[in-house]
């Protein structure tokens, strides 16, 4: 592809400028509305220069125990991440190393589990957790989120393990190391970036999830995404607090995109792009 001419460059920049405005305005609105005084929230034209206020953040944490809901989100997200990355990566190692024609089927079966519709299992989950006394506990969500996080970890880690040269493992085997020792000392350190990427994906997915959190938790184990909806009521919508809560919730995802965008293709397109 040749370098575009000046005319073409202007065309490209104009269209991209429009796209950036369209795709970033909603995010700007969340950030600015979260520090905008309520009386000018919907002022026209939108107030660009104003004295920022932190009253919405104060209300968010003082009027409702939003801090507790953030903690719940953290506990659930970290718990499910640890569980899924551990079991997902050892399974990925086995799938990467066993050469058997059924292995591909097992890998696809695991991957397909990620794509099943949550709504189809929410009724059974509700009944099962109710029976087990696990409704409204972080443990229920940790288990449920692993259903999506384990397949994702297996998928990502298999790719990373495939790239570890087998000569290194063979050399360690000749030195008398057993398989677990080889995995722990040779293979896993070389696939460490994969562990980080998988962990971040698992964390973001769990942190952002809403449907299961809504159905399976109550006042105790409620997560932040469910809590932020509770500022919405038909008589008076607390937009300031909703936007402040939304801003807190969107931070991890935005940081992830800005720092690890090159891994997004691998984690999200499931092998569509080679």
């Amino acid at each position, binding site marked *: 592809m040749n370098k575009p001419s000046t005319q073409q460059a202007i065309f490209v920049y104009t269209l991209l400028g429009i796209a950036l405005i369209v795709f970033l305005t909603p995010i700007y609105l969340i950030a600015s509305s979260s520090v905008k005084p309520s009386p000018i929230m919907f002022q026209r034209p939108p107030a660009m220069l104003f004295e920022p206020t932190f009253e919405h953040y104060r209300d968010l944490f003082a009027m409702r125990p939003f801090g507790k809901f953030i903690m719940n989100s953290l506990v659930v997200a970290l718990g499910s991440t640890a569980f899924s990355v551990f079991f997902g990566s050892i399974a990925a190692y086995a799938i990467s190393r066993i050469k058997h024609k059924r292995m591909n089927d097992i890998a696809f079966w695991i991957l397909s589990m990620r794509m099943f519709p949550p709504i*189809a299992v929410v009724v059974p989950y509700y009944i099962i957790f109710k029976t087990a006394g696990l409704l409204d506990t972080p443990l229920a969500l940790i288990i449920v989120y692993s259903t999506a996080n384990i397949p994702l970890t297996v998928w990502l880690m298999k790719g990373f393990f495939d790239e570890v040269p087998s000569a290194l493992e063979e050399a360690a085997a000749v030195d008398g190391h057993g398989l677990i020792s080889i995995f722990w000392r040779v293979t896993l350190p070389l696939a460490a970036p994969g562990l980080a990427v998988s962990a971040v994906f698992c964390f973001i997915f769990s942190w952002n999830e809403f449907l299961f959190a809504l*159905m399976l938790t109550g006042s105790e184990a409620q997560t932040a995404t469910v809590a932020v909806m509770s500022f919405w009521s038909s008589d008076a919508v607390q937009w300031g607090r909703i936007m402040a809560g939304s801003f807190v919730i969107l931070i991890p995802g935005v940081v992830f995109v800005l720092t690890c965008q090159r891994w997004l293709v691998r984690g999200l397109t499931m092998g569509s792009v080679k």
Partner: protein
Amino acid sequence: MAYIRKRNRRIFMTFLLPAMLVLFLTTIYPMLYAGYLSFRSYDLAKPFVPRMFVGWANYQQVLTSGDFLNALSITFQLMVITLSIQLVVGVGLALLVTQRLPGMGVARTLLLIPMMISPVIVGLVWLFLYFPELGYLNYFLSFVGIDPIPWITSPNWALWAIAIADIWQWTPFIMMGTAAALTSLSPEPYEAARIDGNTRWQVFRHVTLPQLKPVLVSLLFLRAIDAFKIYDIIFVLTKGGPGDSTEVLSLYIYRQSFTFWQMGVGAAASFVSLIIIVVLITLFFKSLNRDQTA
């Protein structure tokens, strides 16, 4: 490597089994349970009534009720609207951000942000924009001469309101996948085509697009699977309304199960939707295998 494999078959199996066991217990078992429920009359509002075996009655109720067919039709309408616009805009953006110009990397990264935002937050910010009387979207649109649109209060517009929020969030996905595929295409056919004096559009239409096609097909299947499951954005924006104009399949199942407490009917509807999603997933994996052989 063969040497390592042979001696450690048992350890490899112990590595693999826990993940498979967890997935079996958290997906296959609940699905079988849903299958069991779908043949029972199970009304959670009447906990002491025995759960009678009712045969195909729940399925009959689901498949012959206008509500279910309406939900199915709305789900597919939404899928067609969102996928087609995401495809066109996403491929267009991918062509822009892969130009050899300064600043393209930054633009590409910034455009990916919507994808990683919780769908609830996406719903809330679009609710803020659509909000009757107050929302800024109609204000912005008034500058280009568009009269106020009753986004979420009119059954004619509500589905579009949802589609726009979904398009905003997931167009970057198509852009990302297409841009990655574009950068890995080999440059030779382009140079040949340019030398032959083709216009840019002809090069795109006859050289780029055929090479991109397998990737685009796979990306669209992934989007279709997600579009079929859409829930959060609709829950926030319209809760399926006004009327049932935006009641997609997942909201129908939710309403049957948790508003009417008809767990058996909800489970039967879940099972029908599972069959559809299995077809989509199979087609997705088929599409992956095809470009391996091509």
